[in-house]
C-alpha cells in the first residue's frame, strides 16, 4: 500500500503509458481471443434480454436460467456418458453423443424455466422484477440441492466441446490474422453466438416477427388493434429467449470448463442486462458492449499469465489481484451509469398487458 506514492514519483507517466500500449500490442492475440470467449455468455444473456424486453417483458431471471441450464447440461451429460459411454468424438468440435444430449437438455430446461417467468409475468401479471428474482433464488437452491445429492458419487463430466483450430496460414496473415484467429478460435456455442447476433439483428429490424415484437414492446394496445396477439407473442419471445440463456449457461459448464460449481454464472446474466442497455436494446450493440465488458477480463488474464516487465510491471505489482477480478464489474457499473441517459428502453417494457375485454 505505502509503496504506491513513491513508485508513482519515480515513474515517468508518459513512459508507462507507452509501455502499456506496447504490452497490449504484444499480447493482443491472446487478449482478444480471451475477450471474445468471455463475451460469449454475456452476449447470449444480453440477447435473451433483447428478445424479452423488445416484446415488453423485463427478465432479470437470466442469471438463474443460465445457472439451471449450466447445471442440467452438465448433469445430463454425466448421466448420458454413464449410460451411453463417452464414445469416440466426432471429427469437429470434439462433439460426443453425451455432450449433445446434455446440450439439448440444457436448452429444454432453459425454455421451461423461461416459461415459468412468462407465466408469472404475462398471465399472472406479477411484478416482473420479483418474478425474475424468484427464478434466481430458486435456481441457486435447486441446483445446489441436487448437486449436493449427487456430489457424494463424485461424478465425472462428459467432457467439453473443443475449440475450432484456425489454420496456421490464416492465423499468420499480416494485420488481420490475429483478429480472425481471435474471433474464430471458439467452440461451437461461441461461434453460434456470433451467428445468432447477426441473425437476430436482421430479424428484429427486417422481418415481420421483428416488427411485431417491437410493436408489442412499444405500444401493445396499438399492436393488438391491428391483430397482433400480444400475449402469445410475448410468451413466444420469452420462451425462445430461454434457449439463448441456456446456451450461455451450457457454454460455462460444457465449453469453457467440463464441470459445474455453484454460482458459476457469477453475475454474467446481470452483466448481460447491462450490455443490453448499453447496446440500446439491439443485438449488435449488445454484442459490442459485451466485448467491451469482457475486455477487462481479457486484460487481467493476460496480465496474470504474462506479467509485464520494467516500470509498468513495477506499477502493476502494487495493484492488488482482487482489483483485476473486480474490474469487469466496476467497468460495467461505470459504463452503465455513463451511457444510460442516452439509452431508451421500449416504452411498454415491464408493463403487464391486459386485454380490454378481460378487464
Amino acid at each position, binding site marked *: 500500500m505505502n509503496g504506491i506514492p513513491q513508485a508513482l514519483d519515480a515513474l515517468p507517466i508518459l513512459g508507462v503509458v507507452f509501455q502499456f500500449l506496447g504490452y497490449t500490442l504484444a499480447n493482443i492475440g491472446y487478449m482478444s481471443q480471451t475477450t471474445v470467449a468471455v463475451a460469449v455468455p454475456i452476449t447470449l444473456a444480453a440477447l435473451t434480454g433483447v428478445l424479452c424486453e423488445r416484446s415488453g417483458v423485463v427478465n432479470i431471471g437470466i442469471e438463474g436460467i443460465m445457472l439451471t441450464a449450466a447445471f442440467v447440461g452438465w448433469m445430463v451429460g454425466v448421466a448420458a456418458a454413464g449410460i451411453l459411454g463417452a464414445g469416440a468424438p466426432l471429427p469437429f468440435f470434439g462433439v460426443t453423443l453425451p455432450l449433445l444430449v446434455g446440450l439439448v437438455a440444457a436448452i429444454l430446461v432453459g425454455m421451461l424455466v423461461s416459461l415459468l417467468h412468462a407465466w408469472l409475468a404475462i398471465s399472472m401479471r406479477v411484478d416482473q422484477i420479483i418474478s425474475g428474482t424468484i427464478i434466481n433464488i430458486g435456481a441457486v437452491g435447486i441446483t445446489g440441492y441436487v448437486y449436493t445429492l449427487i456430489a457424494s458419487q463424485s461424478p465425472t463430466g462428459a467432457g467439453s466441446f473443443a475449440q475450432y483450430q484456425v489454420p496456421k496460414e490464416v492465423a499468420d496473415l499480416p494485420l488481420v490474422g490475429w483478429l480472425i484467429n481471435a474471433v474464430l478460435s471458439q467452440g461451437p456455442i461461441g461461434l453460434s453466438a456470433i451467428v445468432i447476433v447477426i441473425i437476430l439483428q436482421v430479424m428484429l429490424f427486417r422481418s415481420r416477427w421483428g416488427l411485431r415484437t417491437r410493436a408489442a414492446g412499444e405500444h401493445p394496445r396499438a399492436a393488438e388493434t391491428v391483430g397482433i396477439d400480444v400475449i402469445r407473442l410475448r410468451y413466444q419471445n420469452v420462451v425462445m429467449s430461454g434457449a439463448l440463456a441456456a446456451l450461455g449457461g451450457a457454454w460455462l459448464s460444457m465449453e469453457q470448463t467440463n464441470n459445474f460449481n455453484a454460482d458459476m454464472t457469477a453475475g454474467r446474466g446481470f452483466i448481460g*442486462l447491462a450490455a443490453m442497455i448499453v447496446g440500446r436494446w439491439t443485438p449488435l450493440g449488445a454484442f459490442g458492449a459485451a466485448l467491451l465488458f469482457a475486455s477487462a477480463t481479457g486484460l487481467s488474464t493476460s496480465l496474470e499469465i504474462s506479467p509485464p516487465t520494467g516500470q509498468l510491471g513495477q506499477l502493476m505489482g502494487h495493484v492488488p489481484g482482487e482489483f483485476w477480478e473486480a474490474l469487469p464489474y466496476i467497468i460495467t457499473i461505470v459504463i452503465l451509469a455513463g451511457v444510460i441517459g442516452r439509452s431508451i428502453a421500449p416504452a411498454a417494457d415491464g408493463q403487464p398487458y391486459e386485454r380490454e375485454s378481460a378487464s
Partner: protein
Amino acid sequence: MSGPVTKRRPARHRNAIVNAIVASAQPIAEPLVAILLALLVGAVGITMLSGLLAGHSSFDVGLPVAAYLALLGGVASPNGFTSTLVYATPLILAGLGVGLGFKAGLFNIGGRGQFLFGTVGAMAVATTVGTTQSSYITVPLALLAGAAFGAVAGFIPGFLKATSGAHEVVTTIMLNYVFVFVTYWAISGPLVLPNAHQPITADVTTRNAALPIILGRDGNAGILLALAAVPIIWFLLYRTTLGFEIRSAGANPDAARYGGMKTSRLIVLTMSIAGLMCGLAGATTLMGVVHQIAPGYDTTVGFDAITVALLGRSNPIGILFSGLLLGAMRAGSQSMQVQAGVPAELVDALQAIILVFLVVNALRRWLDRRAAKRGSTPLIDADAAQAAEGVA
C-alpha cells in the same frame, strides 16, 4: 313482507362478518397458505429426487416426513430456539432494509455486498481500536462502523440511480461482486492477522469486539438489536415525514414529484438506510456468530432478506415474523441434513416455491374461484388484492 327481510338480513350480516374476518386474516393467511403449499411441493420434490438420484432403490415416501420432522426437531428445543433467534437476527435487520427499499419502489439486491462491506467495517474497528480499548468502546464503535460501511455500500447505487438513472437491480448486483473482492483484499491486506499463514483476520473475541452472550450457549446480543430495529423502522415509515415521502414515492413516484418531494434525494437516502441495515446485519454476524473473516467468507443473507421482506409484505412487524420463520428454517436445516440426509439447500429451493405461491396469490385465487362458482361476489375486493400484489 317482513319474512324475507328478516331472513335475508342475518345472511347479509353473516357475509359481512366473514368478509371482515377474511380481510383481517388475509395478511397472515396468505403467507401461511403459500408456505404450506411450498412444503407440499417440496415433499414431492424430495421424494422424486430421492428415487432418481440419491441412490435409493425406490421412491422414498417417508423421506420428506423424516426431513420435515428433523427440521422441526432442530428448532423445537432450547438450543434450537436460541439458534433460530441467532439466524433470524441478520435476516430481520437486512429484511427491514430491503423492505424499506420496497416501500420506496426500490429493489435492493445488494444486500450481499452491503452485508460484506459492513463486516469489513466492523472488523476494521476491531483490529484498530480493539487492541487498546475495552469492549464498552469497541463494540458500539464496531457496530457503528458496520452500519456506516453498509450505508456507503447502499449510497453508491442510490447515488448512481438518482444522478444517471442506472437501474439499482444491475448496479447492486455488480457491487455485490465488487464487495466480495474488497472483502478478500481486506482480509489478505489491511485486516490480515499478523503472522497468519492464510488471509484471515483476528478473532473479534481477542479484540474486545464480541457481542455479549445473553441467551443460552450462543444467543448473542444482536437479537436485541434486531428486536429494537423493528419499532424504529416502523416509526420511521409510519410516523415521520421521511417515511411518508418514502411510501408516497413507492406508491406513485410521479405524484410524489408533483407534490414537491425531491425524489432523487429520497432515493439516495432510502438506499443508504437500506445499506445501513444490511451492514448492521453483517456487523452483528461477525461480532456475534462467526467472530473472524476467513478465506471465502460469504453470505446468503442478502437474498434471504428479499424473501423475508416479500413474505412480510415490507411491513416491519411482518418482517419480524417472516425473519423468525426463515431463521427457524435455517436453524433446522442443519439437523435435517445430518439426520435425514436431505441437503440444507432445500431451504433455498423452498424459499422460491413459497414466493411463487405468494405472488400468484394462491389463497385469493382459490377463494375467488369458489365464490364465482357459487355465484356470489368475491370475498376480497379486487382493489385490496391488487394493492397487496404490488408489494414492490
